């Protein structure tokens, strides 16, 4: 048996933990640059607000609805997520952290009977110790656990916990008959369209499809999904979190940037962020992809320049990566084109020091990455950096975050106050 634990409306729930005045009010959390809705409270969902709705489309009604909004406070969400995950791990034999707000768990040994009790315990302990509401679905496979969690969320009578085997007779048949295939874990809209051409539109129809035919016409991955819908475990709980294969730092700009020199400065800044993440994971990158792009939603020319390069040696040094990123991309940029996005991707990651330097490639400058980390950890992000990555003046690629809550758990100077 496998449990999926999912934090309800995760980002909104995180905001509410430190601002209880939001409880009961329709609340949304917006993406970087306050562009789109990335999380909705139940009250906001009831107003018909969809995931991905652009803020400017709902802003006019926000006041009338009493809609509360917050900019995304990722440091806060990441901290509360880590707390939740480490807490849940204590109540399980194995844990696979699937996303910031979801993990799969296998029950602890000797705990195979009272699984509904176990699920309720998970829910209770996260609510008490961390303060976030979670839904729990328990089923023989990961795919069914996902469905069970959705049922736990949508049916209040479940109390937020659904155990596959503790449901009324015919419950799953009825549910699978009505749910579209897109409700199945791993079935994207594109696959759903191809399935529809085969006459498969509901979860039940996919469950009853011939797995071998599905493998031949679609993929082994979708065949596993069919098996899992039939309660045959085909996707294991993977405890080992694979080491990161790539690190991407990219941003949409609040306003178009037409000056190649500014884009170059932006990617130099992003490269330093990527370098910091590399050092945090004790990794080095051997290859770099740097890109900029215009927006498909705006009038004007389309331009998507990118550059790929191999570094002389695997590195996580901010100076080396920033210089490489800027030098690689700048020649491909055209002055006057309104770029809306840029990014840096680090590839071919290896553990620090895994690749022994070739004789003669000993770096000529002393490493400064760890020193920069130490200073920024102690005095705040952006205290020191290369180029404009350390200026306090707003840069044209910075996020607009009009409704950002403080770093309650990540910034000593921004602790939640109480009187």
């Amino acid at each position, binding site marked *: 048996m496998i449990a999926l634990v999912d934090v309800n409306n995760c980002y909104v729930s995180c905001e509410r933990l430190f601002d*209880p005045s939001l409880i009961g009010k329709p609340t949304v959390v917006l993406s970087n640059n306050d562009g789109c809705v990335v999380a909705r409270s139940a009250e906001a969902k009831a107003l018909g607000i969809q995931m991905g709705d652009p803020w400017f489309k709902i802003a006019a009604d926000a006041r009338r609805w009493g809609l509360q909004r917050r900019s995304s406070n990722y440091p806060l969400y990441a901290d509360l997520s880590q707390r*939740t995950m*480490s807490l849940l791990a204590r109540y399980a034999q194995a844990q696979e952290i699937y996303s910031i707000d979801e993990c799969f768990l296998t029950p602890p040994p000797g705990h195979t009977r009272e699984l509904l009790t176990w699920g309720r315990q998970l829910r209770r302990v996260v609510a*008490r*110790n961390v303060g976030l509401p979670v839904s729990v679905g328990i089923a023989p496979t990961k795919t069914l656990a996902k469905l069970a969690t959705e049922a736990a969320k949508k049916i209040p009578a479940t109390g937020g916990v659904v155990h596959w085997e503790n449901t009324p007779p015919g419950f799953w048949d009825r549910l699978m008959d009505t749910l579209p295939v897109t409700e199945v874990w791993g079935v994207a809209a594109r696959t759903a369209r191809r399935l529809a051409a085969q006459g498969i539109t509901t979860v039940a129809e996919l469950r009853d499809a011939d797995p071998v035919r599905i493998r031949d016409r679609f993929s082994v991955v979708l065949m596993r999904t069919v098996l899992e819908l039939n309660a045959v475990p085909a996707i294991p709980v993977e405890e080992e979190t694979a080491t990161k294969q790539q690190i991407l730092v990219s941003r949409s700009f609040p306003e178009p940037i037409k000056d190649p020199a500014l884009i170059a400065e932006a990617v130099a800044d992003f490269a330093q962020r990527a370098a910091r993440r590399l050092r945090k994971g004790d990794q080095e990158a051997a290859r770099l992809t740097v890109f900029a792009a215009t927006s498909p939603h705006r009038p004007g020319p389309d331009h998507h320049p990118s550059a790929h390069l191999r570094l002389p040696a695997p590195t996580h040094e901010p100076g080396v990566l920033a210089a490489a990123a800027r030098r690689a991309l700048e020649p491909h940029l055209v002055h006057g084109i309104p770029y809306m996005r840029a990014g840096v991707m680090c590839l071919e990651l290896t553990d620090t020091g895994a690749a022994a330097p070739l*004789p003669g490639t000993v770096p000529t400058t002393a490493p400064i990455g760890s020193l920069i980390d130490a200073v920024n950890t102690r005095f705040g992000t952006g205290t020191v950096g290369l180029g404009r990555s350390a200026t306090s003046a707003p840069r044209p690629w910075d996020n607009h975050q009009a409704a950002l809550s403080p770093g309650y758990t990540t910034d000593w100077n921004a602790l939640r106050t*109480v*009187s």
Partner: protein
Amino acid sequence: MRVECVFYPVGMTHPLPVQAARPTLVQAVLLRVPAGFPSPAQDSFDDGRIDLNDVLIRDVSSTFILRVTGDSMEGVGIYDGDEVLVDRSLTPRDGDVVIAVVDGDFTIKTLQIHHQQVVLHPENPAYPDVVVGGLSELVVWGVVVHSIRHLRPVGRSA
């Protein structure tokens, strides 16, 4: 300290004599070798220095730090600007200093439970008690387990 120089042929992990007659790639490795007697203290230092996180935080995942404003808790030595360590995993008991949610905001008070009555009691006679109907109507956000008072602020917390 003495400084020694040992030659490692490239690809080898242990030193080998280098034959000067044949050209060989070598890496120079600096080894710092302590002179004198080993410190007898080193053996008993395996547990490391006292870590306040270990001493003050029972469970990292359920402990939060909040900052107090105002003077309503001066009677128990919690002053304006102090930080409090709050453990959400504890069950609140009579006499605990707690963070409670009242009218959508946080408040720090002493929890008093007598018979059927629950009171949020400020530790300052200038403020009135807040009487809560019953325990079920009270939202306790967490139990305060320590407070931090800065007597001569230095460093990061200044």
